[in-house]
């Protein structure tokens, strides 16, 4: 079974600084996708960034980028120029390839932005 582990229950960063959230996963599949979701107090899960396992290039979305280390099964999220609106729970998630598949989530990291 696939598992996703986030070892940092809480992180904090000064506004405008950079922070990195860690995630490791375990799978025997070769075709899969990795995601970072943001969950503010409103509970709505919002997709932040997606990485296809077959792509060597790390995904980037504006201030958000990932460091995907396939051999190490590591998938960290870097947030640059942190903003107060970035404060939320962040979840790392895995999905097997091959169509509609369930997401497997990590335990989450609570990110606090200090003004």
């Amino acid at each position, binding site marked *: 079974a696939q598992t996703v582990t986030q070892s940092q229950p809480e992180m904090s960063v000064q506004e405008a600084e950079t922070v990195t959230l860690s995630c490791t996963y375990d799978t025997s599949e070769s075709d899969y996708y990795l995601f970072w979701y943001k969950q503010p107090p409103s509970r709505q899960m919002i997709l932040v960034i997606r990485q296809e396992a077959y792509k060597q290039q790390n995904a980037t979305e504006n201030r958000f980028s990932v460091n995907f280390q396939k051999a190490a099964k590591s998938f960290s999220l870097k947030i640059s120029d942190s903003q107060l609106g970035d404060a939320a729970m962040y979840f790392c998630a895995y999905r097997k390839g091959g169509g509609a598949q*369930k997401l497997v989530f990590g335990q*989450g990291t609570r990110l606090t932005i200090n003004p």
Partner: protein
Amino acid sequence: GAGVSQTPSNKVTEKGKYVELRCDPISGHTALYWYRQSLGQGPEFLIYFQGTGAADDSGLPNDRFFAVRPEGSVSTLKIQRTERGDSAVYLCASSLPGQEHSYEQYFGPGTRLTVT
């Protein structure tokens, strides 16, 4: 367009009662997923539908939990004989078939269920 909606937003029920939670997916999305998120945890998969049929119900914890999607759109998660351990946020998501990247799941705001 409208996103995934879930009703009710909050539900308080007494132990032993029956509850129904509703999910309206994004129009045209044929895949629909249910997840359960306990306090301080990540969401855990319960069941997913492709059209009207349950394609994977391996996450349902026991036979008190049941879900239906009779017309391939709205889905209802049903919990019989509720227990205090069922208290959680129940999240629904939907996705559109097509290219691999189109299987992105769009989440609703969830229903917070409290069993007293």
